[in-house]
């Protein structure tokens, strides 16, 4: 009987309410960075910003979408983006 009801009921899978969760984690290795500013200039969601010494710092980690723009374009291999599942 319970089975028969479940056929007409909507699926019981819970759809989580849309929430902003970071999809990537940006790690900057300061020792290798030369401060060219490419990552800061082109980050589509403004995760990175330059500090006073012209080095990128992660200021909005919650905005990261894990697009890998910064780590593929970093000329000094000083950025690694880890995808968060």
């Amino acid at each position, binding site marked *: 009987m319970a089975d028969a009801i479940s056929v007409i009921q909507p699926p019981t899978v819970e759809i989580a309410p849309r929430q902003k969760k970071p999809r990537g984690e940006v790690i900057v290795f*300061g020792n290798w960075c030369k*401060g060219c500013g490419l990552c800061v*200039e082109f980050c589509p969601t403004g995760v990175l910003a330059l500090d*006073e010494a012209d080095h990128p*710092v992660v*200021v909005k980690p919650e905005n990261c979408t894990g697009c890998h723009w910064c780590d*593929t*374009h970093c*000329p000094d291999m000083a950025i690694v983006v880890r995808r968060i599942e």
Partner: protein
Amino acid sequence: MAEHILDAHELDVDEIRIPRENWFESSETLQKLRKNKKFPTIWCAGCGNGIVMGSLIRAIEHLGLSNDEVALVSGIGCAGRMPVYMDFNTLHTNHGRALAFATGLKIARPDMKVIAIMGDGDALAIGGNHFIHAARRNIGITSIVINNAIYGMTGGQYSPTTPIGKQATTAPYGNIEPSFPLCELAIAAGATYVARSTVYHVLELDKYIEAAIRKDGFSLVEAVSYCHTTYGRLNKFGTAPEMMRDLKKNSISKAAYEKLSAKRQAGNSKIVRGVLHVNDEREEFTKLCRKLTEQAQGGGRQ
């Protein structure tokens, strides 16, 4: 930018301090770097050479080749420094002779993936003859030419790819020589895979390099990466991010280019990106060479 700095300070972000040894372990791409070399690289801030290096490592990674199966050969120049940082079999040779050494290496070890990394001056001026003859021979070398439109390392002399009218230290009133169309030259000389992209479109570059390594015959990938320090400064193109934006603005994909009318195609001054030429019919040189050897040995002494 001031707001960003404030934001940064409100959040009190500490500089992440990671030991050097641990950084090499943080991604697969970084593990292909040579750990005993001096990092950061010698290139200027924002230089596309590093981007091409990452692209090449990702392409090799994607092909699943082990470090010993790949040989990188380079000449002299900014681009010539690239194999130094990577943990493959490497050969750092004379100026312009990267393809000459690579030819010898490929004939001795046909099983190896030989990749020649050159700059525009290295490939077209000093090594111009090697370039056309390697393409004519169709030997299985993947050549990656980083086109920065100038001799960057020696201080900004004009190179065979400097566009007409652009300044260089040896052309203070503007260059009057027409530039060499690198890809068209390779196609005419008989290369079997020719592709061009820019360092802004680096994922495209990954794909092209991968396809070029896969290809049996002579393949060329041109990576347009204008020099910020000499070419950019002399011609007042601005900072590295601005020049990167210009690469995005001043390039057009091959598909979009083909849709243009003939008149607009003729007047096109943008960089055409894409796979420009593929030829599956020509046989690779080392295979022909082996066939000839077998034929000669089989027919001679028996």
